[in-house]
């Protein structure tokens, strides 16, 4: 298939892997901050293939996984209100809150609908004028423009029963927070492809300039990731630190101006609570004054619960890159995709789920 086969060519992949093995002298730590990259790396076997030379660490790259328990509980309490329809992307359903999950509340009778596009939520609001429709807005810069479009559409349609619970998060501030915490010694970042399609390569410059860590924005096929690793290695070898774009077929330096303008109009930066990391200043998105009436917090009085983690769950440390799923005593035992305890086991792009499906050594 065109545009797919080229990037899965096994001879090309093996040649790249060989070159990585010969070029590399000391063991280096590279982090990917995108769940889709994590899946590619584990599923294609890149991590295993390069494990002697390169330690590939998964960072906070899955929007479902970095959502705090407090916010999950908030979504659950909204879903339990009378006269409410909660619209959500499917992977939030199973995420455990403190006592329940959206999936369990749906089984008990809450009206929770799985949507494939945020526009579906606007449509549900239009068709159900007597109900309040709340869109659970979760995602990084990739998803934010589509939510922004839905909110601006709701304004144009003068919908008074459409709201969002805005839990959007931004990737570059999280990368900065990880570096400032100093828990992992990184030699390079594999930067996300989809996020960068929107924001371009400039927002990563502080990493190469202030922290002297090379960055390569890459695509999602095995050869994309291998080439990015090679590009990081070459920078490391030459003592350089630049933001390079491997994923040229999708990403430009300046990003997508239409999407960025729309995001600027609808959203403004705010602080956000990341699971496993805590509050990161300027890492979230809230609605601007013009769109504030769509903010569920402004309309409903929702009691904020406390943050909570299962005492044995190490999702937080996994998201910070200091532990791997196999370090967790719950992994594959009491915590598995049919019965997730932490969020990283829920989403298909969560580190634990990716390791569970594709990275285990034995049944």
């Amino acid at each position, binding site marked *: 298939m065109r545009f797919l086969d080229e990037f899965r060519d*096994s001879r090309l992949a093996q040649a790249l892997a060989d070159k990585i093995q010969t070029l590399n002298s000391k063991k280096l730590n590279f982090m990917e901050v995108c769940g889709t990259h994590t899946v590619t790396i584990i599923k*294609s076997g890149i991590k295993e293939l390069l494990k002697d030379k390169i330690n590939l660490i998964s960072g906070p790259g899955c929007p479902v996984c970095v959502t705090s328990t407090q916010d999950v509980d908030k979504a659950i309490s909204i879903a339990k209100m009378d006269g409410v329809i909660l619209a959500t992307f499917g992977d939030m359903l199973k995420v455990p809150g403190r006592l329940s999950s959206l999936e369990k509340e749906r089984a008990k009778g809450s009206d929770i609908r799985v949507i494939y596009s945020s526009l579906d939520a606007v449509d549900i609001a239009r068709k159900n004028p007597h109900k309040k429709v709340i869109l659970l807005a979760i995602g990084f810069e990739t998803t934010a423009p589509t939510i922004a479009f839905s909110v601006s559409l709701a304004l144009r349609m003068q919908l008074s029963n459409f709201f969002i619970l805005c839990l959007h998060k931004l990737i570059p501030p999280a990368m900065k927070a990880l570096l400032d915490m100093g828990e992992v010694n990184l030699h390079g970042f594999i930067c996300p492809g989809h996020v960068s399609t929107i924001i371009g390569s400039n927002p990563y410059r502080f990493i190469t300039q202030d922290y002297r860590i090379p960055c390569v924005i890459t695509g999602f096929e*095995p050869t994309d990731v291998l080439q990015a690793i090679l590009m990081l290695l070459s920078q490391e070898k030459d003592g350089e630190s630049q933001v390079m774009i491997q994923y040229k077929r999708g990403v430009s330096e300046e990003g997508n101006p239409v999407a960025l303008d729309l995001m600027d109009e609808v959203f403004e930066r705010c602080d956000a609570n990341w699971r496993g990391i805590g509050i990161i200043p300027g890492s979230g998105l809230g609605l601007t004054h013009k769109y504030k009436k769509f903010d569920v917090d402004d309309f409903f009085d929702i009691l904020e619960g406390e943050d909570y983690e299962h005492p044995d769950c190490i999702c937080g440390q996994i998201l910070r890159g200091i532990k791997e799923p196999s370090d967790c005593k719950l992994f594959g035992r009491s915590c598995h995709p049919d019965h997730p305890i932490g969020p990283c086991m829920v989403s298909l792009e969560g580190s634990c789920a990716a390791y569970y499906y594709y990275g285990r050594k034995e049944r």
Partner: protein
Amino acid sequence: MKDHDKVLLAHGGGGELSYRLIKDLLLPAFDNPVLKELDDAARLSSKNKRLAFSTDSYVVKPLFFPGGDIGKLAVCGTINDLAMVGAEPLYMSASLIIEEGFSLNTLKKVINSMERVARQTGIEIVTGDTKVVERGSLDRLFINTAGIGSIDADLDISGNNARVGDRIVISGTIGDHGIAVLSQREGFQFESKLMSDCAPLNNLVSRMVKESNNIHVLRDPTRGGVAAVLNEIAFQSEMEMLIEEKAIPVKDEVRAACEMLGLDPLHVPNEGRLIAFVAEKDAHSVLEAMRDDPLGKDAAIIGEVIGRNRPRVLLETLIGARRILFLPRGELLPRIC
């Protein structure tokens, strides 16, 4: 089972939970040596005659899909289950459970298509039943069947028979049925010329057993897809196998749809494909014989059995790394057959 107090969709998904349901609830309750074989059809004997007996239910949604409908699916499915133990299909039953208000004209179309496959293959629908339930207690039409076939005295084909060195052969491209049905679902609708692979495999199987008496295992990769079937056989035979990802035939349309929907073609159900474990020395002649049949024209060797006592399926990925191919979890595609 202990994690759940209610039946989930995943208990019918052909994956891990289905396996646990069978192993923890059904097998202990109905315990007998014939059932324990866990093949697609039970092998019985009655006064020197060897019989195959199988049952299945069909709940596909929508009832009509590109390349077939629930009627064709029910007859083909029954025939295929019998064919997978090498049996010649003889008789079958058909029970229709119909929702009040269902169009008689549509029912006629379904019955005609059952009749067509039965006539082509020679199986006779000799008994049946019809129940109608009040509107809302069932989605339109479900069909339950049972089938009986006869097995040649010298044939021994079972999921327990895989041997070290066996070559693993697939009869054609994978995932066509699942994606063709999915393309018609509300909320998913995408344009596709893809047709379901739904077809009776008994002629292909007779061609194969004529060619070689070293066919050890046959299985049709329906629910849970190729990944589930390979795992089942690995555990039944207690064998370790190695599958080469790039050798598995997948149509471009199926790959494109799987990419879009986040599915793995190895987990997508098929209704007219089979996987065979054939002794190494006969693998190529069986492959050629399969390719002479219209239903086996894209047949390919996708792997081999590499060792015993370590039941698992290894997948050699496109970049040459190896990982374990696990049973799918959860219900990816409810009501696909």
